[in-house]
């Protein structure tokens, strides 16, 4: 029989108390799976899931503390309960429209497990004010990182991304915060989309700019730049560039004619004959 105490503990158990992650120690992939499963079991939807790529992205962006090195294999990273909480909070807040800078600042100011537990419980559900003033969209970078990589998609090089460097798995405090910027990964993805676009690259760029301009948080300088770019962008496919094809005709050993016929035009036999007749007549009139 359920007692009042049982009911209380069932209904009032805080989110942080339901993590049961004291024993957790694993790789980026393990961390992603653990937090995804945990959020799913707590009733959060599929949008809140994580992937190994996302974990590495967050680590690169300074949202997750650097993992400990495994004692048996120094090349192997061990994420623990601290990163579980960091990742869980980051996923919850990113899906509620928090940008990465804001999440990073929050996590940097709350570096120990007790503080993170308090934050998780306090921020478990969005307040009315938060729903009004934060756009509930997942971040673009996260959306890209949650999708399965297809052939030829961006693979961060060892030089571009320090997380792939074996030197980085050193037990230390949080990495120093990265300067505020959009990641190069998302920019490369966007440029790749433009380059691979079946429409004209100009049109794809225009669509990308128009999408960016819909952002509320765009700075005036960026908006001005985008407006200038749009002003120079063609609104239609425009004319196809002309392919000039000069044709040389030797009419006689003393006479050579060069013709450039617009490649878009296909003259009929009669039209060509008319041109020849007119040319002959002109020659005769001129020289005879």
């Amino acid at each position, binding site marked *: 029989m359920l007692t009042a105490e049982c009911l209380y503990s069932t209904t009032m158990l805080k989110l942080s108390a339901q993590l049961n992650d004291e024993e957790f120690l694993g790789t980026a992939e393990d961390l992603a799976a653990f937090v995804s499963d945990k959020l799913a079991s707590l009733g959060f939807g599929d949008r809140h899931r994580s992937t190994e790529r996302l974990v590495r992205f967050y680590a690169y962006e300074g949202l997750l503390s650097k993992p400990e090195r495994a004692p048996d294999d120094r090349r192997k990273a061990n994420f623990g309960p601290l990163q579980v909480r960091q990742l869980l909070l980051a996923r919850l807040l990113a899906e509620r429209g928090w940008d990465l800078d804001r999440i990073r600042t929050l996590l940097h100011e709350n570096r120990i497990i007790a503080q993170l537990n308090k934050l998780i419980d306090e*921020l478990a559900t969005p*307040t009315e004010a938060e729903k*009004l003033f934060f756009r509930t969209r997942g971040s673009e970078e996260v959306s890209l990182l949650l999708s399965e990589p297809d052939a030829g998609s961006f693979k961060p090089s060892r030089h571009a991304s320090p997380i792939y460097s074996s030197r980085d798995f050193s037990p230390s405090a949080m990495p120093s915060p990265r300067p505020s910027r959009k990641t190069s990964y998302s920019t490369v993805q966007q440029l790749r989309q433009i380059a691979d676009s079946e429409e004209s690259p100009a049109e794809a760029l225009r669509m990308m700019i128009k999408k960016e301009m819909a952002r509320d948080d765009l700075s005036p300088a960026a908006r001005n730049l985008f407006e200038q770019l749009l002003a120079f962008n063609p609104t239609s496919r425009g004319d196809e560039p002309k392919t000039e094809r000069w044709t040389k005709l030797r009419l006689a050993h003393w006479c050579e004619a060069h013709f450039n016929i617009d490649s878009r035009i296909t003259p009929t036999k009669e039209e060509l004959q008319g041109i020849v007749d007119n040319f002959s007549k002109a020659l005769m009139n001129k020289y005879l």
Partner: protein
Amino acid sequence: MEVMNPPMNQPKIEILPLKKGFLRAAADATHVLVRFVAPAKPADATETPRAPLDLALVIDRSSSMSGRPIAAALESAVRIVRGLRDDDRVTIVAFDDHIEVVQSLIAVTDREALALRINAIDARGSTNLFGGWEEGVKQLAPFTRKDRIARVILLSDGQANQGLLNEQEIFAQVAKAAGAGITTSTVGLGHGFNESLMTGMAAAGEGVANFGQTADDLDEAFEEQFAIISNSFLRQVKVSVQGGSDVQVRLVGEILENGATRSRKLGTLPWDASLVAVIELKIGALAKADALAAVNFEAITKEGEKVKFGPALIALPEVDLVAFSVLPVDADVAALIDEALVAEKIEVIEALTRSHKFAEAKLAFEELLKRPGLSDWAKQKIEYLKRLLDEDAVMAAKEMRYGRTRMMSQTKESTMACYSMDVDDSAEAMKASYLRRKRADGQASKPKPPQGGTTGGQPPQA
């Protein structure tokens, strides 16, 4: 006088007509004063602790704030932080055309560290006022709780020139935040600050609008604001009135309109104080004397619960013209009703001043001074405004804006007394800061202390 007698620790609604009778289908309106009165603090409580505060100090650091304005803003911000409790939290946002979170929301445990951060803010750049305000809201939004008071205090000259500039759209966003539990107060700084934007934001944000030139001027304003918060019995009080059959009603100074129901936000009701509203009734031939109008109040308790009080019915006996002409008038009720009506007239004079029609404005002030039954406070205020109009029309317009808002909305004593009597400065000084009647809104009314004095230099205690 009709009084709804409440249980212990409940507010009471008092309906106080100017005259205890009405003339059916009269050309002139009938005026009724409605008071929403808080009980005295419980005798067994030594202190009724206020709800903890989550405060966003949003400071305009644009280049137009250079010099005295930003010095006043920073010093005021430091004084506010020093007056907060350990369980309060504060966030500091500085804005020009770039928004900087100087300090994200944090418990006020190290006041001096916060003071250092505030004092490091310098003036530069243009003004994205809405962006700065919005960031203040975003810092508070995820942490709003029913049992905490969330407030943005915007310190600015209101000279917005970047980001969202449309005032009505800004007010709509501010009202949205207030509806979600984050109120906004504003402090206008500098001689040329935009009072339309600043008072509009405070009205929409269900907060308080103040202005001043120095930190000492603002000290009094913050002392008042925090005293209200500290002594809060109910917050976000709103009055609404619905006319009975064949009765047109108007709330003097109303801001909201909702079909047949007129409503007005009254602000915070402290313990042992009252909030008033003046209702104007145009009573038609078919009106029912026992149900001329119904008045309702809604508010939020300290615990964050929404509560409603009422309806209180306005009922008056119908009398004939002779009887009506000899009906006595309660002087204090008349004084309060008159102050609200005078405040509306000052709005018209303010519009004349802004259109540079100074001669007409002065004439209008002179007409106001001839009004019979004018309270001493209203008279002193009008005389001050008339003098200021000659000296500094820009500042006069600001004083008119803030002054009429105060006349309309200021918290009153819980007892109906002394409004018709002459203002006694020493008696005013003894009152709680939010009950004092001031002639000038943009200046400290307390004498400035000598060097090392205790008054004015102390942080406003929250």
